[in-house]
C-alpha cells in the first residue's frame, strides 16, 4: 500500500475521469492530494468504453495516459480498493475515515506478472465485462488497470494455494484484513460518478431476464477491441447479430421508475454504437427507436447526420414491450409515431436498452452534503457556483451532480480543482504545515 500521510490538502473521492482530472489539476497547483477509489483500478467507466463521441477517438487511449499521470504524480497519493466510511468536520477542515479492503496481495512486493491468475482455476463473471466474460478468483482487473495488481476474491477461492505456489515474490498474503485509514484534509472533492438504472427497472423490456437484452455499458465492452468476445456477438449463443435494436429512454424521462430527467448521453452513445456496429458488421441493421434525438453538443448534430448517412436507422417510436421468440431472438412491440401510431411487432437478434444514468453513490449520512430532488449531489448555485456542494470546503464534479458527457465532466473537474485551490488559499491550509494543536 502506498505510504499514507496523516494530512492532505485535498481528498478526492472517486477515480473516474472527473476524479483523476480534479486530482491532476489540484496537484498541478502544488497541493497534496489523496485520490480514493473503491474499485481495484482507477479509470472508472471511461476506461471500459470503446470510443468517445462524436470524434470516435479510442476512449481508453484518452483515459490511460491520465491514469498513468495520476499514478506517477509526486503530489498524488493513490488509494485503490478503498471504501469511504465517513467525512466529518474537524478543526476547521475535514477528517476522512476510509477502509482499505484486502487484496490478499502485498502491493509493494507484487510485480504484476499475472502468474497467480493463470494458475488459478475457478472462473467467475468478470465485473469489468459486466459478467459477459470470465476472470479467475485472483485476477488483475484488466489490461489497462492501474495499479497492475491482482485482487483475490474470497467468494470464488477454492483454497488450493495455486496462486501462492507460483508467485515469484511470495506476495500472496492470506492474513490481510480490512484496514482502517484516517486522514485530515483541507478540502474534499466528490467525483462519485454514475451507474445505470437496474436492468429490470422496466419489467416490460425483459432486462435481466432475456439473454439478448443488454445494458449499454456491456455493449461497449462487446464492441471494444479488448472486450470479452473480440467481436460483436450476442450472449445467448455467440451469433453474429444481423439485426440490432436500441430502445431509447429505457430508464430516463420516465416518472414511473423515478427517473424523470433526460440522461443526456444515451442518444449519442446509441448513434455511436450504431456507427461502430456498421463499421464492423457491414450487413447488419441497426435500428434506434427514439422519442426525440437530443444531439446538443459540439459536433453532435453532425454526428447524428453521419450515423444516418452510414445506414443507422432512427425510427420515432415508443417500445411497449419486448418478448422472447425462439432461438432467443426478441420481438419488440412498437408504436410507430411517423406511421400514424401503427403498432407493429418487429424481430431483432439483439436489443440494447439505453438505460438512464443514476447516482453511483449516495452519502446516506456519511458525508455532510445535501442531495438534489433528482438524487444527485446538490450544487449550491448552478449558474455561478457549479463546483460547490451544499457544504463549504466540499466540492463536486462530474456525473455525481447529474448526467453529463465526458467533456463536461472534465471541465467541471477542472473548475472544482480551481475552486478547491482558492478555498485552501483562503483558509491558509497546507498539509505540510503542522496540524492545529500538534505538539501540545
Amino acid at each position, binding site marked *: 500500500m502506498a505510504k499514507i500521510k496523516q494530512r492532505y490538502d485535498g481528498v478526492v473521492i472517486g477515480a473516474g475521469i472527473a476524479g483523476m482530472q480534479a486530482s491532476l489539476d489540484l496537484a498541478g497547483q502544488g497541493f497534496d492530494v489523496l485520490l480514493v477509489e473503491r474499485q481495484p483500478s482507477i479509470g472508472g467507466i471511461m476506461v471500459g468504453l470503446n470510443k468517445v463521441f462524436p470524434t470516435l477517438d479510442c476512449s481508453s487511449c484518452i483515459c490511460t495516459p491520465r491514469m498513468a499521470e495520476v499514478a506517477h504524480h509526486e503530489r498524488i497519493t493513490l488509494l485503490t480498493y478503498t471504501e469511504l466510511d465517513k467525512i466529518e468536520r474537524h478543526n476547521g477542515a475535514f477528517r476522512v475515515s476510509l477502509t482499505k479492503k484486502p487484496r490478499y496481495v*502485498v502491493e*509493494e*512486493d507484487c510485480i504484476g506478472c499475472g502468474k497467480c491468475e*493463470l494458475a488459478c482455476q475457478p472462473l467467475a463473471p468478470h465485473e469489468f465485462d459486466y459478467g459477459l466474460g470470465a476472470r479467475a478468483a485472483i485476477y488483475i482487473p484488466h489490461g489497462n488497470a492501474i495499479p497492475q495488481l491482482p485482487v483475490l476474491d474470497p467468494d470464488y477461492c477454492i*483454497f488450493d*494455494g495455486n496462486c501462492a505456489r507460483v508467485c515469484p515474490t511470495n506476495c*500472496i*498474503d492470506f492474513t490481510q484484513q480490512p484496514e482502517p485509514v484516517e486522514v485530515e484534509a483541507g478540502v474534499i472533492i466528490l467525483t462519485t460518478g454514475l451507474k445505470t438504472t437496474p436492468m429490470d427497472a422496466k419489467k416490460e423490456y425483459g432486462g435481466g431476464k432475456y439473454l439478448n437484452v443488454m445494458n449499454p455499458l456491456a455493449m461497449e465492452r462487446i464492441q471494444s477491441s479488448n472486450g470479452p468476445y473480440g467481436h460483436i456477438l450476442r450472449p*445467448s*449463443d455467440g451469433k453474429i447479430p444481423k439485426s440490432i435494436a436500441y430502445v431509447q429512454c429505457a430508464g430516463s424521462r420516465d416518472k414511473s421508475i423515478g427517473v424523470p430527467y433526460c440522461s443526456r448521453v444515451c442518444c449519442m452513445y446509441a448513434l455511436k454504437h450504431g456507427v461502430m456496429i456498421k463499421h464492423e458488421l457491414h450487413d447488419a441493421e441497426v435500428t434506434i427507436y427514439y422519442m426525440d434525438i437530443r444531439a446538443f453538443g459540439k459536433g453532435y448534430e453532425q454526428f447524428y447526420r453521419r450515423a444516418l448517412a452510414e445506414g443507422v436507422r432512427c425510427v420515432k417510436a415508443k417500445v411497449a414491450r419486448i418478448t422472447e421468440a425462439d432461438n432467443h431472438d426478441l420481438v419488440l412491440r412498437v408504436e410507430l409515431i411517423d406511421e400514424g401510431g401503427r403498432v407493429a411487432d418487429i424481430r431483432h437478434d439483439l436489443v440494447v436498452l439505453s438505460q438512464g444514468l443514476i447516482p453511483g453513490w449516495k452519502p446516506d449520512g456519511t458525508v455532510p452534503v445535501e442531495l438534489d430532488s433528482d438524487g444527485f449531489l446538490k450544487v449550491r448555485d448552478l449558474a455561478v457556483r457549479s463546483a460547490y456542494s451544499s457544504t463549504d470546503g466540499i466540492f463536486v464534479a462530474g456525473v455525481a451532480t447529474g448526467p453529463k458527457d465526458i467533456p463536461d465532466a472534465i471541465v467541471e473537474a477542472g473548475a472544482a480543482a480551481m475552486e478547491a485551490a482558492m478555498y485552501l488559499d483562503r483558509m491558509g491550509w497546507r498539509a505540510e504545515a503542522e496540524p492545529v494543536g500538534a505538539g501540545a
Partner: protein
Amino acid sequence: MSEAVRNWREDLKVFRERTGGLTESKKAMTKEQRDVTKAIQEALKGGPRTVPEIAAQTGIPSHKVFWYMIALKKYGKVAEAGQAGDYYQYAWKEATS
C-alpha cells in the same frame, strides 16, 4: 520489498476457516466448471465446432457453452477456427488424446 516472512500454507488454512471454507456451493461451482470444460473438450475432439453445435451435442444450454468458450479462449485453451454461417467455430488448442 516488505520484510515480512510469509508462510502461505499456514496462512491459507486460517484464511479458509475465516472465509467460510469450501462450501457446498463452491463445490458445485467447481464441479460444473470441470464438467462443462470437459464436455466442450470432448465435443471439440471431432474438429472445430460452433457454440450451437456444441450445445446440441452436449445438451448444455448455448449461453453457458458460449460463456465457458469465451473463458477458455481468454485463458488459452481454445481458439477461433474460422466461421460457419453466422457463428465462429472454436478448436481446442491442447492435445486432446
